[in-house]
């Protein structure tokens, strides 16, 4: 048996049979609600066998090329065999004497053959057989070219629709079985915990089947187009599929599945917690303010006031529905997580669905109320973005202005090593040092002055070092605005100019101090 034949003759029929068995199990459980004495095992086995037989008979008809009356005869015999087998199955567990007695009634009352139990099982098995045949046919159709018809439904669409609708039926049947018919309309009933194995098996097998369908589709397309397929691809596909499904199953099992706080209550809880935090902060501030005012009150001869004690009611968890297993806050957290996951999921799915269909999105946005809402939200968003940008722009500017107002003397102290600077940085430092010293002497550089303009201002005050000031300014401009490289020798030369200018500034300072002393300032 090669890989493909194993896939088609063994794997697929078993998966299909298993999935129909899962649906049948839920239906049997549902029927048990109404007829608790009914033995549904025959039906479950019958559905699985019908699904397996459908696969086999479909291939047989294709292999023998049966058509017209031959095919009808084949199908009629097949259906009759179903009925006979189900009838035999309905006697399983009965005493042989009872079976014989029932059979003896058939000639007198032929309607005894088609009792309700067997008929129901037959109808359900027939449905399973029909759906299974359609599934096998769709799997075969994957390799066929699509038909140019408006009503053509691709085999993949047909298969997935069958899988999804089967899943929906399964969920409804399994859900009703667990909550009961009476509680169906009671929306305040507690959640039903526990694992539903047949539902899990159905969906996991379905996902595996979807992976196989996708692989078969791609493989057929590649074969049709003559595309070479790497040998490793099939094996890796199986490995990656299993790993992927395992991973998503793990994720799904990790997320919270129940809630004890409703959606509106969850929102109210969030608002309540936020309000509580704001009040707490306010309380702390008022306490600190009270402490600061206390000495002031004592000055006016009052008794030392006791600072107001913060008194906030304890944080109360909201009302919960019954059914929670953990602590109150744990249940709230679990509910909040659940609602966040659920809403995020719905939002993401709808968003990506609409993004993939721009025409639908356009049609929706052209509707009046939606357009107005969209316009409002966009305007609000832009406003928020504008405010954020303005804040981002203004805050650093204000901060820098404030720092500038403080002046250089307020700059934080830090260790400074001139030798660690690069030659360019050293030249910059020499010039800025002159600016600082001149500023202390009452000769600051105005904000609008260029270095050359400032040289014209400071130069006349330093008649002995005017040339050095020119050279220092020239060096600074080059270091600041040009890209040419400076070496240590050049920095050393500038240092000599700087020292002369510094000496001239110190002389100027001494002179001004002497003058001040002389005139008695």
């Amino acid at each position, binding site marked *: 048996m090669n890989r493909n034949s194993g896939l088609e003759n063994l794997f697929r029929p078993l998966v299909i049979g298993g999935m129909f068995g899962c649906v049948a199990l839920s239906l049997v459980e549902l029927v048990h609600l109404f007829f608790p004495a009914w033995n549904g095992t025959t039906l479950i086995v019958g559905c699985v066998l019908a699904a397996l037989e459908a696969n086999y008979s479909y291939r047989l008809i294709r292999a023998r090329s049966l058509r017209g009356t031959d095919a009808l005869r084949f199908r009629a015999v097949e259906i009759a065999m179903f009925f006979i087998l189900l009838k035999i199955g309905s006697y399983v567990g009965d005493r042989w004497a009872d079976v014989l007695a029932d059979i003896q009634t058939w000639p007198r009352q032929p309607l005894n053959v088609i009792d309700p139990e067997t008929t129901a099982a037959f109808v359900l098995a027939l449905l399973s057989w029909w759906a299974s045949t359609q599934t096998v046919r769709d799997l075969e159709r994957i390799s066929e070219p699509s038909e140019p018809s408006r009503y053509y439904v691709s085999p993949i669409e047909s298969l997935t629709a069958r899988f*999804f609708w089967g899943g*929906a039926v399964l969920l409804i049947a399994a859900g009703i079985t667990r*909550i009961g018919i009476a509680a169906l309309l009671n929306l305040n009933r507690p959640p039903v915990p526990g694992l539903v194995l047949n539902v899990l098996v159905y*969906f996991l097998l379905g996902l595996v089947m979807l992976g196989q369908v996708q692989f078969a589709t791609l493989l057929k397309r590649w074969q049709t187009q003559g595309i070479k*397929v790497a040998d490793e691809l099939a094996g*890796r596909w199986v490995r990656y599929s299993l790993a992927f499904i395992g991973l998503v199953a793990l994720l799904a099992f990790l997320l919270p599945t129940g809630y004890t706080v409703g959606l509106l209550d969850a929102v109210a809880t969030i608002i309540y917690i936020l309000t509580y935090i704001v009040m707490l902060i306010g309380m702390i501030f008022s306490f600190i303010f009270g402490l600061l005012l206390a000495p002031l009150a004592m000055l006016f001869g009052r008794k030392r006031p006791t600072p107001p004690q913060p008194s906030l009611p304890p944080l109360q968890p909201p009302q919960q529905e019954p059914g929670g297993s953990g602590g109150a806050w744990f249940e709230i957290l679990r509910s909040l997580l659940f609602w966040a996951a659920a809403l995020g999921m*719905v939002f993401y799915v*709808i968003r990506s669905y609409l993004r993939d269909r721009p025409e639908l999105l356009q049609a929706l946005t052209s509707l009046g109320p939606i357009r107005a809402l969209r316009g409002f939200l966009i305007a609000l968003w832009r406003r928020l973005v504008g405010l954020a940008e303005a804040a981002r722009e203004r805050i650093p500017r204000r901060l820098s202005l404030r720092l500038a107002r403080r002046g250089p003397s307020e700059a934080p102290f830090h260790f400074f090593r001139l030798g660690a600077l690069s030659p360019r940085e050293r030249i910059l430092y020499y010039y800025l040092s002159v600016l600082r010293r001149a500023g202390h002497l009452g000769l600051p550089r105005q904000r609008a002055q260029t270095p050359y303009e400032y040289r014209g201002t400071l130069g006349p005050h330093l008649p002995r070092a005017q040339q050095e000031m020119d050279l220092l300014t020239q060096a600074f401009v080059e270091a600041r605005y040009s890209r040419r490289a400076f070496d240590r020798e050049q920095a050393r030369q500038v240092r000599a100019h700087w020292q002369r200018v510094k000496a001239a500034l110190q002389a100027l300072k001494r002179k001004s101090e002497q003058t001040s002393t002389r005139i008695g300032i």
Partner: protein
Amino acid sequence: MRNFVPFLLILFAIAALLRVDFFFTIVYLFFAVYLLSRLWTRRTVDRLRVQRHFTDRAFPGDRVTVDLTVHNVGWLPIPWLEVHESLRVELAVPPFYREAVSLGPRERWHFHYTLHCRRRGYYPVGPLTIQTGDLLGIVRPRQVQAAPDHVIVYPRVVPLQQLGLPTRSPQVALPARSPLFEDPARVMGVRDYQRGDSPRRIHWTATASAGRLLVKQYQPAIARETLICLDLNQEDYERRQRYTATELAIVVAASIANHIVVREGLPVGLTTEAWDPLLDNRVRFFLPPRPERAHLMSLLEVLARVQITSAAPFVDLLRRESVNLSWGATLAAITGRESEALFDTLVYLRRAGFAVALILVQSACPLTELQKRGDLLGVPIHRIWKEQDLEAWR
């Protein structure tokens, strides 16, 4: 998968209505499938790197093996990857290379295919289209394209022993019988000074040694450089034979250039006005004469990619580009049709001091009259129609 999202919403509605906890797990399962499939596909596409390794220059008849590497630089595996490399029909039949693979985390996959270089040209290798998708067919497959590389197939080069083209150029030094020029770099010997010799020719060392005035004797030399003027104006070739004739003209130009550089070691240049697929525009090429082999390769590259176009008249090209040449250079004009204007231009060029040769690429027609006229004007005329005709010049 069209109905996946509606199904997911229905599933959620059922789970919310029935409030069976496990059904939410199923909803999460399908949502996780949807979300991770989308993220996985998007992520894997962003994590693909493509490289091509091949010799991007070839001669007709060569086979070039292309090593195409697709590298998944991410840690996520890529379940399936359909690679479609578009090729030109001149390089491969069928004109594409396709393969479907699966890439593991940080895995490289090497694809190998061969290009059959049949015709000269400048061909794109690619673009490479990569399609990938998820395992379950939930997300639409995503496509990315990698930019093409290019391969240059040089024109066919026919080996020629002798061209028979006239030479009258002083630019390149070659030993010659008639001492029209002397190369001061090539000292042949010394002789006694004669009246009228330039003092710059005196060999002072030898004079000092011999005790009498001696002058240097230089090796006599003439020089030649050739400019191939290729006509790729479609009007100058017969409509029915346009393709064959222009391809042959290019082969002639390439063969002449190869012969001059490789066999004779002389400088050769090229000028033509043609459609350049590299720039996707009409371009006037002028490659000044040079003797290096590297120059020959760049000349062949131009000849590899030029295509016929509706250009300005060929005579304009001849007149314009001759301005860039030194006196005495050789002009080899290759065209598909002779005309009075062409002869007038050739005569003008000859009188301007150039040596001129006309190579006509056209099917059989009486050549005797033309040759007579050519002899009269001092312009040798050759006619080429088959590649074998080139061999006749041997």
